[in-house]
């Protein structure tokens, strides 16, 4: 992965910046010391473009900004150090990191050793009120689904719903559904509705398999919504729910259900559409 990151950086960044990075990596690989690592990790901001992004055939890193990619490459050198040095340095850097450094650290968690010892840091990182940091842990990152307790998972997904993040980009959103989360989503929806507000339609995906009477009522409500995205979500829930508890909604949602059959509608397509709307909204 380190070579892939450097290769992608070579295509976008200045030759000077890339050769600086290569020399830092080779010096640190040969003789790792904390202070030069600190200077290199933070000093990425002095060499690379503040705004440029990299392109890669690997989806994981495609679109990362140069700071994130270069810092991840340096973290892969840290990852080769002995356990104590690794954990001490990782924690020192994380505890003093600025926003973009935190994004790099959390994005690189998937490639780090001793992951069990980094779980608390990731859970703590989600307490941020800065969206970029939250996203670097929760979205497009396999780490939470592999390591989070049910409690931490539930809090992460609830917060994602609360701050309207694209849920289809959470790894394991389907696999890690649970009853507590389903109930909390229903509670949040009722709160929002009481205030005359909405909840992102993607939320209901986490309720599949945990449909009780109240949630069945919620799905019935969104099945009748004027918002086509709500109806699409209701149909996606109905199509996947195997308990038969939602079968009576099938007639009302027949149009949406046939779109699912033809592959025209999926959680991914709905999620992507919601995300596009969110971006459009933030631009206006």
């Amino acid at each position: 992965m380190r070579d892939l990151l450097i290769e992608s950086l070579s295509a976008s960044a200045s030759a000077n910046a890339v050769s600086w990075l290569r020399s830092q990596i080779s010096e640190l690989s040969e003789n790792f010391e904390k202070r030069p690592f600190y200077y290199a990790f933070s000093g990425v901001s002095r060499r690379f473009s503040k705004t440029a992004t990299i392109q890669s055939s690997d989806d994981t890193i495609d679109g990362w900004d140069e700071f994130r990619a270069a810092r991840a490459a340096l973290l892969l050198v840290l990852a080769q150090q002995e356990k104590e040095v690794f954990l001490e340095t990782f924690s020192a850097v994380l505890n003093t990191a600025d926003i973009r450094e935190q994004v790099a650290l959390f994005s690189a968690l998937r490639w780090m050793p001793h992951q069990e010892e980094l779980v608390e840091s990731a859970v703590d990182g989600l307490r941020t009120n800065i969206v970029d940091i939250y996203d670097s842990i929760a979205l497009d990152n396999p780490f939470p689904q592999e390591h989070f307790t049910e409690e931490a998972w539930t809090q992460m997904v609830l917060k994602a719903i609360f701050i309207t993040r694209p849920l289809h980009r959470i790894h394991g959103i389907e696999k890690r559904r649970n009853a507590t989360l389903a109930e909390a989503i229903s509670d949040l929806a009722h709160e929002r509705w009481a205030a005359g507000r909405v909840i992102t339609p993607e939320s209901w995906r986490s309720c599949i398999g945990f449909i009780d009477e109240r949630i069945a009522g919620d799905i019935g409500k969104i099945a009748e919504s004027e918002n086509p995205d709500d109806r699409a979500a209701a149909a996606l829930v109905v199509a996947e729910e195997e308990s038969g508890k939602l079968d009576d909604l099938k007639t009302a949602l027949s149009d949406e259900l046939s779109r699912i059959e033809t592959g025209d509608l999926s959680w991914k397509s709905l999620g992507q559409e919601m995300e596009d709307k969110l971006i459009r909204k933030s631009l206006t």
Partner: protein
Amino acid sequence: MRFFDSHVHMVSRTTDDYQRMAAAGVAAIIEPSFWQGQPRTEVGTFKDYFNSLIGFERFRASQFGIKHYCTIGLNPKEANNEKLAEAVMELMPLYICKEGVVGIGEIGYDDQSKMEEKYLIKQAEMALEADLPIQIHTPHRDKKKGTSRTMDVLLDVGVSPDKVIIDHNNEETVKEVLDRGFWAAFTIYPHTKLGNQRMVELMLEYGAEKIVVDSAADWGISDPLAVPKTAALMKERGVTVEEIEKVTYHNPLAAYGQSGQVEESDWEEHEGIDASALFEGNTLFRGGQDIEEAMSQYLIE
């Protein structure tokens, strides 16, 4: 007109201040690390303070369209606590190369004690190592000698005067600072430091070369609009727009720009600069009457 206030302690200021600063045309600011009004007793509070400078305060400023930078350092008052000072020296390397850290500062003398000198030297060496500008706090007491001594020490360490901004100057210190090739910054701070009428006189005498005007607004009675207000007074007294722009914008940008961590394009992408419009017709003008009232009394004594 756009301003760059290169010395202001925003952690002590309110959102009203941010709104007014943005409305008055302050495009970018530097927040130096400083004393918090009472001594810190643990290195952990330094870490959290530095974290707030590169984290939440930067984020908070961005919410008002203001670009926030900082300098990292151990202030002279706390340099007298040797155990704490050593721990802060260990901590600083984690911060000084970060994005938006434009120098080591504010450092210098307070009592002019031996400990203060020890950590002034250590931090000047760190600035050399990381190739960063230095922001100097000159002492309130025995200022003239303290300022000379600071420059002597920095030159001994091997720092280039061109990379040092000596702050809190007055009529007594400015000549030597400029003669020795350092940047001379002036803090427009009511009552205890320098009023802006005196600043205008200084400009008329010394011109704009290597001169910087800042507010150093903090937790005391101070004025986060000191830079735009001083610019307004300068304009009224016949200082040219070009010279006003130099001391309130271009000079601090050039001095701290030597860090490679701040450039005009960082904020220019948001709004173009209209040099002909001083206050009126400011595109960032969103404080309405509030800012008109705030700016109406621009004399700071």
